[in-house]
């Protein structure tokens, strides 16, 4: 603690602060390039020069970099001193010596830190008349555009990419004034977080290649605070739209969630809104019609229906839409659930019930040890990035996985276990921590010791991978280890839909349809007949349904099969509320409007209720949606925490559907493989989806009696629902007896995590 003086302004500081940080906290922005709050100080650019006034007689004033200067009590500094101004102007002059001054055609213009600093610091005119150095740019994949001539060599990109995200395929190459920031050879950047280079770069070296193809000057973009819809972390974003189309998404700081960054799914996944397959017209019985006419026809058919109506909401739809559907079902005497799979509903409820003190991303990053179960990179990429900070700080990471998980590469202990063994391993670990002498194999002993010795440990799990039993085992382990606990839930609003669910809802909805009690089904943003977990049971009911009404903003298999289809506004085209993995309710607002008439789900469902004579749906939905909050969370604010007291019913909800993982009948167990660009919406993003790993059935090598079949050979897999041919791929990170499959393959076979598959030729 202390105070220093910057041009006579008193600036308080905490011990260890450097001058630039303390000044920033006091509201004084010292010009800088290489300093970044998330990346720290290195003293490379020399723009933040300040003059240190002599402390004693005979001392001379010195110019020093504020980012490298530790604040000291009573220190007198000046930004305005002639020498400091000259030093900063000299840095601007020098970095601009080689800069192409192509602002008129540069994508970064208008939000370029170099432009800002040049205007703020000067000089106004350039003097350098020599030749400029130029570079050959690289192809960095479908998402990032590279223009090295603009580089001012601040090293932010490599510090972010290598130090912060632990990436290895982008580096500083060469030396002197020819330092080159790129890859060893052309090719897509491998990091799931590469897109942040666009925002980290203080000028236009790394720009958004997707935005570039539908470019708008940034000052012409319409923006408004939004929430990322692609996973349960709920990162805060700032979508930018123009002329009725969404052009790009950037991060928006919220210290309770993501402060500086977003993942590439969040940045580039928005392109589902401009997918050529996106359904933009209402449809009934195979022909397109006006929205109001389709709604009218649907309401008539619902009124005429003999059986009851069932409603299936979605973990990726907002509170308002799900609440409206549940209200409609309540009024019409039908069942509602947001979850196609009873197993998954139980897992979400179990996970949410245990997440009453879930750590924020910053708290995860600050942990003294992390234990991760499942592929966090594929299910909650920004949680993965927080875990990388634990690794970066030199703390231990433990990863338990059945199929390849990117974080395993950074783990001190990575255990590959078949899905059926996961919950047991977690229970063994818990027992070891409770009773250090209890029985366990050497690996689990080592893991339990790491966990028991750690300061501020965190335990993170993927709910879909763990199932309800696994989630409970993980929660008990966390309790025993005195660790903070968080789950990656399967959808942006999975926590919210769990709040809206009652025990056994998913099973009831399914049974009502299976039994024929319900012959009409309204699906809001789900894909029960396509690739949603639980699709196996659902698909068998399709022929019994007299009416399938689908409301969605993407072209799912279920949407394709719909008798009536209502196109919905996509995320940034409307307002709503999501509740993230930790129970933080966050509002998002409409950023732009499309040319077409696209209702939000709340309006569409309420309108339907109105048409069937249930005018109260709208009001009921509102009450229900905000029941667990005092008020709707304001877009652009930091969110409202749902009080844990409000969701004690979740445990009961989990109990209703809770079932132990059944041992598979055969040897091979299906295990879900995900990747960072995955997801029901992002899968429709054309550029991002080109990076998807090729489809395959993945197993660990060396599991056969004799020789392994050659990689790439086509294998035929059989599940309860059907057969599927896929090329065979060897992944050493797969557990023994586990077959790694993507979501679509699991759905086609009709299996979920840990369920048995047969295949031939067998190794």
């Amino acid at each position, binding site marked *: 603690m202390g105070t220093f003086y910057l041009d006579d302004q008193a600036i308080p500081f905490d011990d260890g602060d450097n001058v630039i940080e303390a000044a920033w906290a006091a509201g004084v922005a010292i010009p800088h390039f290489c300093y970044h709050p998330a990346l720290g100080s*290195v*003293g*490379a*650019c*020399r*723009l933040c*020069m300040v003059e240190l006034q002599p402390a004693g007689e005979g001392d001379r004033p*010195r*110019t020093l*970099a504020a980012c*490298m200067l530790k604040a000291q009590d009573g220190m007198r500094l000046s930004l305005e001193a002639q020498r400091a101004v*000259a*030093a900063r102007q*000299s*840095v601007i002059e*020098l*970095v601009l*010596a*080689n800069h192409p001054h192509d602002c008129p055609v540069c994508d970064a213009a208008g939000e370029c830190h170099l432009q800002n600093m040049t205007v703020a610091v000067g000089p106004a005119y350039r*003097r*350098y*008349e*020599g*030749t400029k*150095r130029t570079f050959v740019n690289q192809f960095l994949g479908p998402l990032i555009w590279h223009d090295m001539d603009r580089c*001012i*060599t601040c*090293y932010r990109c490599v510090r972010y990419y290598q130090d912060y995200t632990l990436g290895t395929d982008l580096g*500083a190459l*060469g*030396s*002197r*004034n*020819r*330092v080159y920031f790129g890859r060893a050879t052309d090719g897509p950047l491998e990091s799931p977080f590469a897109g942040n280079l666009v925002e980290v770069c203080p000028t236009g070296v790394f720009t958004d290649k997707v935005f570039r193809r539908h470019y708008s000057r940034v000052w012409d973009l319409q923006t408004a605070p939004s929430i990322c819809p692609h996973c349960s972390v709920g990162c805060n974003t700032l979508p930018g739209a123009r002329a009725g189309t969404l052009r790009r998404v950037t991060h928006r700081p919220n210290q309770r969630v993501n402060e500086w960054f977003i993942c590439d799914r969040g940045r580039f996944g928005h392109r589902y809104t401009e997918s050529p397959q996106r359904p933009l017209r209402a449809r009934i019985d195979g022909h397109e019609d006006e929205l109001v006419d389709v709604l009218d026809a649907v309401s008539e058919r619902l009124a005429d229906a003999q059986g009851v109506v069932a409603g299936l909401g979605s973990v990726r739809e907002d509170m308002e839409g799900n609440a409206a559907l549940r209200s409609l079902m309540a009024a019409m005497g039908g069942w509602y659930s947001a979850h196609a799979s009873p197993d998954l509903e139980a897992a979400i409820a179990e996970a949410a019930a245990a997440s009453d003190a879930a750590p924020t991303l910053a708290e995860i990053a600050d942990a003294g040890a992390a234990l991760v179960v499942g592929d966090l990179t594929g299910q909650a990429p920004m949680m993965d990035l927080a875990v990388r900070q634990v690794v970066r700080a030199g703390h231990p990471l433990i990863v338990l996985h059945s199929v390849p998980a990117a974080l395993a590469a950074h783990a001190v202990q990575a255990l590959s276990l078949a899905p059926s063994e996961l919950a047991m391993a977690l229970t063994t670990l818990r027992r070891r921590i409770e009773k250090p002498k209890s029985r366990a194999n050497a690996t689990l002993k080592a893991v339990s010791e790491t966990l028991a010795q750690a300061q501020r440990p965190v335990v993170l799990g993927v709910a879909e991978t763990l199932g309800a039993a696994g989630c409970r085992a993980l929660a008990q382990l966390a309790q025993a280890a005195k660790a903070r606990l968080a789950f990656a839930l399967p959808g942006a609003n999975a926590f919210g839909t769990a709040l809206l669910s009652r025990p056994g809802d998913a099973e009831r909805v399914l049974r009502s349809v299976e039994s024929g009690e319900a012959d009409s089904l309204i699906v809001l943003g789900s894909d029960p007949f396509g690739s949603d977990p639980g699709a196996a049971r659902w698909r068998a009911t399709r022929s019994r349904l007299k009416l399938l009404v689908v409301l969605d903003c993407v072209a799912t298999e279920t949407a394709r099969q719909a008798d009536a289809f209502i196109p919905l506004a996509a995320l940034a085209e409307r307002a709503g509320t999501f509740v993230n993995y930790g129970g933080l309710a966050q509002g998002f607002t409409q950023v732009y409007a499309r040319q077409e008439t696209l209702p939000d789900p709340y309006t569409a469902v309420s309108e339907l209720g109105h048409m069937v004579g249930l005018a109260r749906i709208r009001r009921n939905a509102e009450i229900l949606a905000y029941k667990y909050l005092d008020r709707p969370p304001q877009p652009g604010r930091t969110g409202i925490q749902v009080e844990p007291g409000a969701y004690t019913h979740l445990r009961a909800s989990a109990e209703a559907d809770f079932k132990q993982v059944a041992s598979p009948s055969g040897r091979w167990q299906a295990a879900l493989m995900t990747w960072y660009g995955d997801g029901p919406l992002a899968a429709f993003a054309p550029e991002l989806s080109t990076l998807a790993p090729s489809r395959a059935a993945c197993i660990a090598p060396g599991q056969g009696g004799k020789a392994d079949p050659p990689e790439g050979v086509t294998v035929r897999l059989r599940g309860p629902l059907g057969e599927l041919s896929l090329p065979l791929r060897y992944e050493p990170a797969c557990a023994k007896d586990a077959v790694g499959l993507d979501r679509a393959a699991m759905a086609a076979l009709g299996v979920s995590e840990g369920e048995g598959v047969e295949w031939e030729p067998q190794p």
Partner: protein
Amino acid sequence: MEPVLSRNFHLPQPPGLAEYRAGGGYENLKAALDRRPADMIEMVDKTHLRGYGGAGFPLARKWKARGPDAPHPRYLVMNVDETEPGSFKDRQLLYRDPHQVIEAVLVTGFIEQADHAYVFVRGEYAEGARRLEQAVAEAREAGLVGHNVLGSGFDLDIDVHLSAGRYICGEETALLNALEGRRGNPRAKPPMPFEKGLWGAPTLVHNIETLCHVPYIVSRGPEWFNAQGINGGHGTKLYSVCGEVQHPGFWELPMGTTARELLYDHAGGPLEGQELVAFLPGGASTSFLLPEQLDTPMQFDAVAAAGSRFGTCGIIALGSTTCPVEFLIGINKFFARESCGFCTPCRDGLPYLQSLLERIEAGQGKPGDPDLLLELCAKIAPNSFCPFAPGAIMPLESGLKVFRDAIQDHIDRGACPYGGAR
């Protein structure tokens, strides 16, 4: 004067272990192993022995700064990354008497109670590094290197590391980065390497010539050492002279020998038909001295008093028929090229200077160019991250003053008066 460091340089081949021992080699090591490190630090403290890699920091003060209680592991690094233009004295030690180098590492390692020693050798000195490695193997075989040195209970192994080759890797923190396999960029100080150096452990980095004196000092005493200097200098020094002189070369002479004696008596004076215009006393990264300063004793304080830097004391002489602008271009080109590229003033400033110097030499100079050059020098040197840019600016800034008329002549004529760059 009896040669000390160069006592084996007359041999046609560098001495092998047997020959080195026959000449009294490793006796100093034996003497050192019988003494207490703290006593030897005091002995060296009485000698005024300073770092000969360029910075001139007193060796004993470096030892005392780290202190006897520094945590283990501790590393000792011998810096043989001699890349300073005009300096080629370290090379002689490396190539012509490798066992003397090893003995120096062992004695110093014992004084520092180091756990491991690295010898970091300039990339172009590959042959020297190979010879040193052979000698280390020979010495290890004889029980001099590695476990239980000469039965003393002291362990010290030595690794010879050949640099991938950058001037900046001679700067101690960049050297440590390079040793760790990172980019050869300097590190921020503090922490100083003696606090957190190689892999975060206490590390002392010393020039080869500095350390080669240590075994002699601890066995013959500080009085003996100090008595060898003249004109305020202490001990002997490997001096070298190059540039436009009759007989470029190196000589071990009493510290404090005057520039005149070096340039005229030993190097034979300027080339036929030329006059001495100026000389850089301590390698390229020092300020020019003029003929009227020839009587300056070549030792740290005297050269500093004359307005320059003793540096490595590799003297470069400039003759009257060479265009000084071209000379400055050559020096600046070297530094612009060797900049690591980390900080802006150095990385982008030196090439800016280069563009101005080149246009003056090409007859395209503008009237404001000399002032612009001086202005840039004044902004580059004090604002850069490490001492590289201040070193690069020194010859240029002083050259711009010393050769102001010649530079103005280039601009006025629109051509190089020396006939260059036609």
